[in-house]
């Protein structure tokens, strides 16, 4: 079957050589494939994120989501792990980049991998997508409503704006936003859009009317079916263009 897949929890080598948990899904009966690192949102390495990992495999990509909270909360429920990470001020940027690098290396090592790796993330993961694509050599990046790429986060939070890193962006960027979102608000998205244009970086931004933050989240009231369906089509078209063999 073209959408057959296998999925499993594995251990990968992340930042600083740390062994961390990760969720891997790979397509079956496919000789070669591109790959996607899925960065989980702030609520954690949870069921809905793992569903996304499997969705990419069903569409012919190997997909891997590192558990960014594994160090603070090995084996904990995703919500408990997220609460611990939040109380600690979030995931340090350097560690995030190291974990994404480890995930990308693991994907490239899989038999059948074509060597192309994309990255996608939602919410806090959207900012971490931009950070990763400005820090690592990747082939495609999808930022779904990531805030604090341009503006400062609240005091005491570890994350800092990363607009100054845009000259280092290594790959095309697809940005999907809600016009009613406040974090990032449309003016913040516009600043990022202009900065990418200024530096000649290939990018494609879409802002959906009648959608706010987290419009892809099927298990939350923020879900917006029109935006989510169109957004998924744009994601697969984009990865199809940039991650094909």
């Amino acid at each position, binding site marked *: 079957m073209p959408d057959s897949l296998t999925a499993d929890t594995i251990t990968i080598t992340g930042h600083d050589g740390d062994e961390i948990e990760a969720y891997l899904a790979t397509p079956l009966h496919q000789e070669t494939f591109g790959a996607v690192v899925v960065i989980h949102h702030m609520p954690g390495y949870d069921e809905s994120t793992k569903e996304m990992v499997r969705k990419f495999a069903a569409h012919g990509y190997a997909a891997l989501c590192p558990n960014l909270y594994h160090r603070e*909360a090995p084996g904990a429920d995703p919500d408990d*792990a997220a609460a611990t990470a939040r*109380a600690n001020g979030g995931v340090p940027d350097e560690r995030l980049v190291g974990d994404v690098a480890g995930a990308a290396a693991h994907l490239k090592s899989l038999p059948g991998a074509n060597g192309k790796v994309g990255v996608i993330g939602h919410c806090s993961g959207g900012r971490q997508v931009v950070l990763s694509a400005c820090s690592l050599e990747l082939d495609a990046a999808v930022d779904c409503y990531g805030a604090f790429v341009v503006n400062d986060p609240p005091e005491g939070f570890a994350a800092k704006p990363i607009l100054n890193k845009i000259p280092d962006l290594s790959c095309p960027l697809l940005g999907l936003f809600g016009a009613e979102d406040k974090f990032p608000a449309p003016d913040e998205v516009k600043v990022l859009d202009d900065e990418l244009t200024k530096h000649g970086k290939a990018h494609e931004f879409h802002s959906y009317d009648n959608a706010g933050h987290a419009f892809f989240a099927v298990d939350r009231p923020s879900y917006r079916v029109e935006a989510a369906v169109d957004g998924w089509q744009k994601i697969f078209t984009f990865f199809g263009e940039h991650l094909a063999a």
Partner: protein
Amino acid sequence: MCTYLTEKIAIAGSGKGAHGWFGLSEASVYVDHPVHMPQEHTVNIDFRNPALGPSARVAVELSEEAALALVDAIKAAIDSAPAGLASEHPDATAEERMAG
């Protein structure tokens, strides 16, 4: 939206979690997405003891109205009891207790 803002305080008390009772040392309060309540944003309170691990947590997700009503109810309950009855320092004066 994700607010990221977190109020964190040290507390004394006990809570009952998935594995029974345990001592509490911290509380985090934040307005952000809930895990369970069917609302886009809620007032979330985590009663925690990090020394016992991430699972040592009692969590609630409240509407803004419920959270504010809870604050009033807590104050009313304390005010209706003899001063200092539930204090960590029952022999201290009211001024000393207010000063922490």
